[in-house]
């Protein structure tokens, strides 16, 4: 025999419904805790696209990458076009700097464009780097690799510049391209282009 519930208490739930709701809340709490721990455990990720190969522009990606690695980030640096020079064992030791069209440098364009001036500008900068105990590009590449940074060389650029896998430092990743770079960026917390 069913009992009519008194008016005004249609809003109250039966013991069964309460038990169901409790079970559902428990379930949701467990799911939430799961998601939370997944979020907490996932290490943060940074991707840098390195496109420049001049002496000055080799530094930002390398310094950021090695520093982020020190902070526990999972770092990938995808080198394309002139960025490849940073990974080139020989060329990375001889990166150049020009004052032409570079208002940040003290030499006027007309002079900077004269033969031999790029070498002088480069030498000036290298001297400054050494005098100030700043790490060389080569040592930063090694440090980055040792810190677990994934230094990647764009395959298309390797072919374009007619380089070979052996030209690069040991540990450099080859055989990667825009699609893999894109996927890494999509999953990263920090994405930079230099």
């Amino acid at each position: 025999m069913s009992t009519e519930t008194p008016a005004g208490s249609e809003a109250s739930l039966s013991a069964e419904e309460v038990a169901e709701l409790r079970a559902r809340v428990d379930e949701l709490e467990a799911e939430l805790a799961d998601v939370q721990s997944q979020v907490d455990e996932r290490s943060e990720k940074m991707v840098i696209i390195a496109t420049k190969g001049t002496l000055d522009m080799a530094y930002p990606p390398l310094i950021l990458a090695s520093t982020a690695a020190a902070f526990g980030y999972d770092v990938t640096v995808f080198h394309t076009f002139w960025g490849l020079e940073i990974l080139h064992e020989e060329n990375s030791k001889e990166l150049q700097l020009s004052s032409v069209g570079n208002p940040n440098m003290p030499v006027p364009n007309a002079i900077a464009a004269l033969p031999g001036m790029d070498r002088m500008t480069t030498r000036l900068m290298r001297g400054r780097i050494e005098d100030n105990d700043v790490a060389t590009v080569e040592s930063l590449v090694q440090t980055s690799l040792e810190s677990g940074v994934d230094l990647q060389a764009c395959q298309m650029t390797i072919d374009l510049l007619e380089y070979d896998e052996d030209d690069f430092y040991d540990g450099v990743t080859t055989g990667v391209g825009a699609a893999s770079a894109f996927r890494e960026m999509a999953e990263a917390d920090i994405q930079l282009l230099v």
Partner: protein
Amino acid sequence: MSMEQTNTLDVKGQNCPMPVVKTKAAFDELDEAETLEVLATDPGSMNDIEGWAASTDGAELVEQVETTGGDGTVYKHYIRKAE
């Protein structure tokens, strides 16, 4: 203050990013409750190492001391690995 075994990392004469990068590598080698002493000449190391310790689980920045002597200014950082 008493410290359990202290390892020393000398990064004098090296500038950003080396002090922090090498501190992390040296810190990873520590056993729990051990302390790492970092010696640096890079003035930036004060902020850099403080920031790094704050962001790193298990790294406790015990103290930072600036000493001036024959070598010039040396920044000493003491980082303890939590149990």
